[in-house]
């Protein structure tokens, strides 16, 4: 590929100017020879963050493994929209077994590769937040605990989207889902429930845990690349907005992911052996309201009588994240 010379300088934007970088530092996605591991033509909704996240992550993993990746996939949107047979989007060897066993299937693949001496081929497991934090959690924890040579990627869209937007243990508080409807005195998902799986993954002392969003392509790719340098159990949790489930515009997927990070709602960091090694600091601090308001799943907070109390509660959660992970905006920017 020929590289364009720098034509202009962008300011005031979050997009990463690939053209400003030397070729070897450019993103995997910017390369016209990228693997396109999950090819176009799949049936995801317009603006699906999960489709984007998978594309970014698996292409980066493919780049790191010289094109030798085998993927195990949990039941869920990614599985369904990518394999409407006789069409499949996957350009890599790919298996879907069940909803709750993906980590274990990946362990089996890794064991087979090890025993056959094919250690150059790497294994990635992937699933939605439901398949990861709920039904697949036992298998995932087992895989972590044995430190099996698997990179597990969770695409977190905050609910069981494939079955019609039900609550999972990764659904944020106050969010409306079809099983936490926006009715009654405390509409939406309950406060004080749910779990943040990256922290639980860290508690397993596995070599690598990271979070990322689809808003930061370079960060996401760097984390996948870093994960691929390591052997053993690795976990990357990617926030992937879902236009259908969140009630957001298709063109706002990246914006929503960025707002989640900039408001402190979703901490972006990486950890090795249970210790946080780096965080992506907030660049321009914003109130959580900016993140909540565009989403129909929070519409009940902004009705005739806005639920200032609930919004304040969510702001307190974000502030706690900011303190806990040290996400404060740094002077002089990124």
């Amino acid at each position, binding site marked *: 590929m020929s590289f364009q010379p720098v034509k202009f300088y962008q300011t005031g934007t979050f997009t990463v100017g690939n053209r400003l970088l030397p070729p070897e530092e450019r993103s995997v996605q910017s390369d016209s020879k990228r693997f396109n591991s999950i090819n176009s033509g799949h049936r995801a909704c317009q603006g699906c963050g999960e489709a984007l996240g998978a594309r970014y992550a698996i292409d980066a993993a493919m780049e790191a493994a010289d094109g030798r990746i085998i993927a195990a996939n949990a039941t869920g949107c990614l599985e369904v929209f990518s394999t409407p047979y006789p069409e499949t989007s996957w350009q890599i060897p790919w298996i*879907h*077994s069940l909803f709750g066993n993906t980590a*274990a299937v990946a362990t089996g693949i890794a064991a087979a*590769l090890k*025993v056959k001496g094919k250690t150059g081929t790497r294994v990635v497991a992937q699933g939605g937040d439901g398949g990861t934090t709920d039904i697949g959690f036992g*298998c995932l924890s087992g895989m972590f605990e044995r430190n099996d040579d698997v990179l597990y990627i969770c695409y977190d869209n905050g609910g069981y989207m494939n079955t019609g937007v039900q609550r999972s243990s990764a659904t944020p508080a106050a969010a409306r889902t079809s099983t936490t409807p926006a009715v009654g005195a405390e509409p939406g998902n309950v406060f004080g429930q749910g779990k943040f799986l990256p922290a639980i993954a860290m508690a397993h002392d596995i070599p690598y845990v990271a979070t990322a969003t689809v808003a930061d392509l370079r960060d996401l790719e760097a984390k996948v690349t870093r994960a691929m340098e390591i052997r053993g159990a690795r976990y990357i949790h990617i926030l992937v907005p879902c236009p259908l489930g969140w009630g957001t515009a298709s063109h706002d997927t990246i914006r929503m992911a960025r707002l989640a990070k900039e408001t402190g709602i979703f901490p972006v960091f990486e950890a090795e052996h249970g210790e946080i090694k780096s965080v992506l600091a907030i660049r321009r601090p914003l109130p959580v309201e900016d993140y909540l308001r565009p989403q129909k799943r929070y519409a009940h907070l902004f009705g005739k009588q806005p639920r200032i109390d609930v919004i304040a509660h969510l702001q307190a959660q974000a502030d706690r994240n900011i303190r806990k992970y040290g996400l404060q905006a740094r002077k002089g920017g990124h």
Partner: protein
Amino acid sequence: MLKQMEGSRAVAEAVALCRPEVICAYPISPQTHIVEALGEMVKEGALASCEFINVESEFAAMSVAIGASAAGARSYTATASQGLLYMAEAVFNAAGLGLPIVMTVANRAIGAPINIWNDHSDALSQRDSGWLQLFAETNQEALDLHIQAFRLAEELSLPIMVCMDGFILTHAFERVDMPTQEQVDAYLPAYSPRQVLDPDEPVSIGAMVGPEAFMEVRYLAHAKQMEALKLIPAYAAEFKAVFGRDSGGLMHTYRSEDAETIIVAMGSVLGTIKDTVDEMRDSGHRIGVLGITCFRPFPVAAVADALRQAKRFVVLEKSMAIGLGGILAVNVRMAVTGMGLKGYTVVAGLGGRAITMKSLHALFRQGEKDELEPVTFLDLDWKAVNKQLEREKAHRRSGPVAEALLRDVGIVGARNY
């Protein structure tokens, strides 16, 4: 080589001779000795190029086997009872994906009430999962069936359960003829998968299939099992040629040529049944035995042939279709449809209840005279049952059933008389 050893050890050594590449295990009695032995062989290096994975559940065990098998490794696991049910979703999945995993089921009852002893409820609960199911009569056959199972599974690209009676076989020390590595290598070729996850030839496995093709995929699974009906006897014959033993096959008949009454059963109880039949033959009874080795696929035509000459059959099974009667019996009845045979179902030995020759003598004599009920529960303690039924009539809050029965029966520990 002739050896005296525990059934579990014999199976473990046979599995090791089959050169498995990935073994995953989760402990449950009475399967544990098998996987413990294999784990030790892997750890001490006796079983070269094999990965042994201690998983966190049976669901994971089967799932690891699925992944390993799909990536081209010969995969093995073992379980029983609650463990088999815990992995059920993955059991169906392995069959649906057509992955030739071999699994030992050390047959044990299913709770509640929790019970560790032998019956066939566990394996039979998975009879429609798409797995082939072979039942061993002796430790020798259990050992031999595993060797045949790998060959058969990999040829058909279907998973196989080798079922052996928990404790009765798994924990019994008996003489077995342990084959040599050369013999097994001569019989069992290296695994050449029909489908494999390979970056050099990427395929997608496990796509969603809608109404347009689902029936056909299912039918093909059935067709493959029908194919197995031919392969199983052929492989048993080849086995005999290499190892010099009759083992496996679809079924075994015993003294049934001129029999008017044929007892049908599976597993180790066939030994007791044959001994009883021998004694009855000595006193002139025309009685014989049909031992089913292959429960899935069910050898409909062969069973019909074996029963054709008889006047009646009595299915004695260690399983129960609650609300109907027998499971094996229903299958046998299917085979003899339209043949005008009298058939009786006997549910026996549930949860490890001993099946004695004394009881069998009485039962078979009743059967010969057509005095059996359509469904008989062998050696059921009617007094205890009726007492509980009365209690339930008398009190709304009659309490938990199992505990009330234990109190009435008044015996601590397993009653194995």
